[in-house]
């Protein structure tokens, strides 16, 4: 189904008036977007904003109640399971496997889109797995059970699987979740080196600012702003969306850097102060490393 004639200018994903409701609650409201290829695109927004749902709608995992999602100019719902899997790798929040599958087996599963119901992997698949694991620096863990890898290693193994899958588009649901700073940075670096398009939901706005080419800010199922980090990470927008006070500065790399705190008028601040520090003003704002753990 992959069409070689697709122009570099053809949008990777085109969403047109996408709505989705679950148990009569509107999760996605009239979302229209046109996403370019070969970029890293971050979906940001508060908890429950609809980030994961938007990602799932793009992948065709949910049947939207209104609107269409096109992938490479074709409705995503029209793709066969295998055709879709050859082009898009969907990496969910880290799975916990019931049985002790080895890293090798977990990555080898990336060849499934190329197998029929009654066919199985061959020796060329084995070489693909080994070379993907080498690329992800996991070759020494090849025989270990997947469950025993650290969070960062598991993410890298799943990216190795998407390489084996031959996918040129990665959809990742909060890939930096549960990772320490070093592993987060390593993962983002890996994604930057990925030869294709990456779309992910992400909580850490400074990380998103640094590594993403474009950001989609959503709130209550609606797109608040879509554009380059400089346009989206605007103090007023972030303050309103996240209900925090925000100051945006420019980092040494020229990307926006955000500082947050709770507003003075926030109900939580009307309680007894925890310490007797000076009232917080924008100059003495604490840099808060956004907490990834929901």
């Amino acid at each position, binding site marked *: 189904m992959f069409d070689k004639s697709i122009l570099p200018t053809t949008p990777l994903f085109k969403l047109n008036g996408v709505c989705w409701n679950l148990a009569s609650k509107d999760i996605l409201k009239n979302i229209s977007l046109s996403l370019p290829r070969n970029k890293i695109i971050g979906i940001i927004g508060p908890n429950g904003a609809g980030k994961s749902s938007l990602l799932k709608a793009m992948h065709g995992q949910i049947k939207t109640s209104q609107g269409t999602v096109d992938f490479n100019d074709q409705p995503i719902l029209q793709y066969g399971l295998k055709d879709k899997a050859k082009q898009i790798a969907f990496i969910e929040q880290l799975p916990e496997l*019931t049985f002790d599958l080895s890293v090798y087996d977990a990555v080898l599963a990336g060849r499934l889109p190329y197998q029929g119901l009654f066919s199985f992997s061959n020796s060329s698949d084995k070489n693909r797995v080994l070379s993907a694991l080498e690329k992800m620096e996991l070759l020494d863990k090849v025989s270990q059970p997947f469950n025993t890898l650290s969070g960062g290693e598991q993410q890298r193994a799943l990216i190795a699987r998407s390489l084996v899958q031959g996918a040129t588009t990665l959809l990742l649901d909060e890939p930096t979740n549960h990772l320490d700073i070093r592993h987060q940075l390593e993962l983002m670096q890996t994604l930057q080196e990925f030869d294709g398009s990456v779309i992910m939901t992400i909580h850490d706005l400074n990380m998103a600012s640094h590594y993403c080419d474009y950001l989609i800010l959503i709130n209550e199922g609606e797109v608040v702003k879509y554009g380059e980090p400089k346009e989206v990470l605007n103090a007023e927008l972030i303050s309103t969306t996240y209900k925090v006070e925000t100051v945006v500065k420019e980092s040494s790399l020229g990307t926006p850097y955000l500082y947050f705190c709770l507003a003075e008028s926030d109900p939580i601040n009307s309680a007894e102060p925890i310490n007797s520090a000076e009232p917080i003003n924008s100059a003495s704002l604490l840099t808060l490393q956004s907490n990834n753990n929901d």
Partner: protein
Amino acid sequence: MTSPFNKYDASNLDGSKSKNSNKVQKLLLPLLLLLISVTLALGLGSVYIPFSEVLYCLTEQCSSPINSMIVQDIRLPRVLLALFAGAGLAVAGAVLQNSTNNSLADPYLFGIVSGAGLGAILYNVLNIQLGTIGMSLFAFLGALLSVTLVMSVAISKAYKKTETLILTGVAVSFMLAAASQFLLYVSEPMAANRIIFWLMGSVAFANAESVTWVSTTVITSSIVLWLLRDNIDALLLGDEQAKSLGVNVDLVRILALLITSAMTAIIVAFCGGIGFVGLMIPHIIRWFGFVKMRQLLPMVFVVGAVFLIWVDVIARVSIPNQEIPLGVITSACGSLFFLLILKRRVS
């Protein structure tokens, strides 16, 4: 420059903990064990026949016609029936566990055995005359009924929770067993007696016909399941991941369940209810690091066969001039094993 891949022996990549051995070597020991078990089992029973005599009898050079009759006509069908029933039940267990991503799935706990039993009893009680096919067909329909009931109650994501699946299986099992008991209660006493012994599991009535039916079904089903192995294993990644890798999750699971139901039903139709083989054998094999169907299936086939051959030997030699039903022995071991697994899980 040497390739980095040279450091890793490709034969070790299948998840097995035993290194420096290939697939055939790994199967060699169990196969040897199977061969020895079959030969020894042919000699053991109320009349002891030495190992060498068994070998002579198998090659038509028996010293006495009685020994020849015992080995060839009585014990050989029996040992073969135990071999294929054990293999089939162990394969059914392994496939149910991998396809539902649940380590406690088993044809017995899933209600498949009770369902097949109900079908077979119904066939006997209604006195339908359709020959062996009729009995097998009724057992299959009964097995299908239980699988449908279990899967429709524990639908979608719920069966991922071990407890939901097992409790549903147990409830369905009780329900169908109650129906079977009612049928036995209202049927004529002689038939009830016969059926009760059969229900507890036995290979005592083995003959050429039953061996042919069970062996053909078990071998055919195992081959089809072997061909489906990569797709069944994909379900170990979880349904969403398997789907995103292009696997038709529902189709693979339905096929796996249908084939295991048919295989279990035929075994139940000829050997009655033999529980827990499908739970114990795959568990033990997994302890050795065999997780994927590629290694699990051949191993459980052989080890399941060895296990049931020896259970049958115990059944016929432990009490002189009497037989213990196989199901009694397997359920006794199996329930203890089940408790052991639960204890390990808790700790």
